[in-house]
């Protein structure tokens, strides 16, 4: 892990010193010893803040989409894990990012810690998280401490990850990791798919009653880029209403899920951004399973592919009688 951190810093330092980029986007320390935030390094001093560890969950490609990459003609270095690289591939497939302006540092990934799994074990606030191999130590301000097994803390999606190595990169931070072979598996969906329609209705009603329409999911998503033109924001006509209650909230999220389908690799950025912990990863994963079952398609794998719902293919297996 620390090797990769050193390599990331070295690559960023060189790219900046050689004038190949204006800014390098990576992960760095947040407001306490348990937080990681996106960091925009522009000089050698800021490069020293860059980190790589299992808390580095942000999908930094969200900063490459239109109206986030400022100034618009900046040359940007960016770190991507495997899942992050797939949203970058999706953006490249649609021609939404200029490849010439990017310096991509791919970071092979062993899995990202789900912060919520730590926080739920404490009544008080966790202010420090340390990772030492497979042991994770979390501490509160008062000194209460718990040890965890790292594999048990990983995001649900990491268990099913088939693309831990970046799909696109200019340089790779260290050795690649073994990649699972074979068909995709969907362990997160087992329980959901075993529910009856009435039970699913109940689950969706319960979780979407909490939605506060903050748009964190929409904005954290690298392939959700319509901004003020978003269907969910439209007021004339008001396609999704302003009644912030279950039916409209569910419609709001369905609009998002359907619109990103074919470009969403279930990176989970939406899920992690949600302040009320709606299981968005689960719902996006369900959409992606449907796409895979119907069309054999997985989003963000090859730059030369077209997103499934933007391609017209006479050999399309779905609809062949």
């Amino acid at each position, binding site marked *: 892990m620390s090797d990769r951190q050193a390599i990331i810093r070295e690559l960023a330092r060189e790219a900046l010193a050689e004038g190949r980029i204006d800014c390098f986007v990576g992960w760095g320390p*947040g*407001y*306490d010893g348990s*937080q990681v*935030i*996106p*960091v*925009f390094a522009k000089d050698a001093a800021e490069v020293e803040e860059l980190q790589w560890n299992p808390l580095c969950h*942000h999908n930094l490609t*969200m*900063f490459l989409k239109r*109206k*986030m990459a*400022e*100034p*618009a*003609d900046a040359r940007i270095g960016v770190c991507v894990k495997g899942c992050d690289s797939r949203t970058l591939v999706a953006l490249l497939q649609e021609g939404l990012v200029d490849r010439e302006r990017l310096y991509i540092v791919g970071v092979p990934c062993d899995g990202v810690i789900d912060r*919520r799994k730590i926080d*739920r074990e404490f*009544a*008080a*606030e966790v*202010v420090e998280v340390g990772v030492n191999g497979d042991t994770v130590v979390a501490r509160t*301000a*008062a000194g209460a401490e718990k040890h965890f097994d790292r594999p048990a803390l990983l995001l649900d999606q990491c268990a099913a990850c088939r693309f831990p190595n970046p799909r696109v990169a200019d340089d790779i931070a260290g050795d690649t990791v073994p990649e699972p072979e074979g068909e995709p598996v969907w362990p997160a969906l087992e329980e959901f798919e075993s529910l009856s329609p009435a039970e699913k209705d109940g689950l969706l009603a319960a979780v979407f009653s*909490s939605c*506060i*329409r*903050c*748009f*964190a999911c*929409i*904005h*954290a998503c690298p392939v959700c880029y319509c*901004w*003020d033109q978003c269907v969910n*924001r439209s*007021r004339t006509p*008001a396609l999704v*209403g*302003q*009644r*912030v*209650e279950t039916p409209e909230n569910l419609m709001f999220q369905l609009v998002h899920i359907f619109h990103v389908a074919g470009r969403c690799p279930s990176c989970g950025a939406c899920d*992690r*951004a949600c*302040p*009320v*912990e709606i299981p968005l990863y689960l719902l996006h994963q369900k959409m992606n399973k449907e796409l895979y079952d119907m069309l054999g398609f997985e989003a963000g794998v090859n730059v030369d592919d077209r997103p499934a719902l933007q391609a017209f293919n006479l050999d399309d297996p779905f609809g062949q009688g």
Partner: protein
Amino acid sequence: MKFLKESDLPAFLEHLSGEAAVVAPAKVDGMVRFLPWSPGTEVELEALLARQSAKEFIFPQWETFLKFRYLMVCDAKRPGTTEDAKMELRLSEEGEGGGEVVAVPAPAAHELLMVGAEQQAVSQVIFGLRPCDARGFVQMDRVFGGYGGFYFDPYYHARRSVATLLVVSCHEPRSTCFCRGVGGGPADAEGADVLFTRVPEGFVAQAFSDKGAAVLQYPGFEEVSEPQVAAAEQSKARAEEMVSVPFELESLREGLRANFESADWQELSRRCISCGTCTYVCPNCYCFNVTDEVVETQGERLRSWDNCFNPSYTLEASGHNPRDAKPSRFRNRFNHKFWYYPEKYDSLLCSGCGRCITYCPTRIDIREVLSVMGGNETRAAGQAAGGAGAADGQVAADAKVGGDAADGEESQHGR
């Protein structure tokens, strides 16, 4: 002051629920939220803060102002039709049948019938607020309360005037708390009708209003003892010491004014994703939208929470958007809370709860922003601003800050 045994808390809340809807923090699916309370619901007071403030119970995330329907003039002129339609519209209002239906002539051979929403609100008791939550209401009271001769909001007032705020002081502030930095504190009573402080086996309770004094008449309260009072004072003092003061408040307004054109706004807002989480979890962000939702000939006029990070927040009918650039929207939030609002309403619009830090997807830190931008030293690096538009601060010279090249061009339309 009086004392309430911890074990008597459910009975106390049940007593209150006889006359008012009770709201209290409860843990559901691992998350602590302010929720309607009913007997049997366990109140969660271990966790310091509910995920959201209790703002929505007095200033709901959406509400109906009025309902309306159109009648074709030919319909309206048919005997009985208008009266039937009025009756239907009036009865469709929740509660006692709605107010008087007003008929106005409308363009294109229609008649428009409108009925306003009932402005009578259900009495509420919100228990388990922290001082920062209660202070949020006090700060919002200015803008909605006609302060300075400005607008008086009857909808907010209807709920606010029948709400009782029962505050529980903070036992263990979080690292993100900065109430003391904005003139508050973990045991501050501003806005509280009763302030409860946790002591062994219960709470010391002190009333700060007539409403509060009435609450303390509940027979379940006992006489408070000297040791209990001392324990309460000790708890408050300990909590006070745990909250830091991260920036200097005095110079903040002038510092923000001086730094209006600073390029540092672009740097500070870099990792902001321009969602609205911070505004929606905030105890006192109050910006709202008014929209009509119409299906064929019937509709409702709704008020709903808006947020200043919304890219369309300042989108005008012409298509021009003075805050099309993210740094300018970012700057606006802090300026609103610490400069424009105080200037207009003599109150800050921040109570230091720190939720915006905790729930921001990229952990933008308001303390950092204010320390950097609110200092006395002007940071005008890289911008030849010339000061134009900075004088009163509310002019939208915002297009100058960051993202000009691509975003600026989209916002410069004149039609």
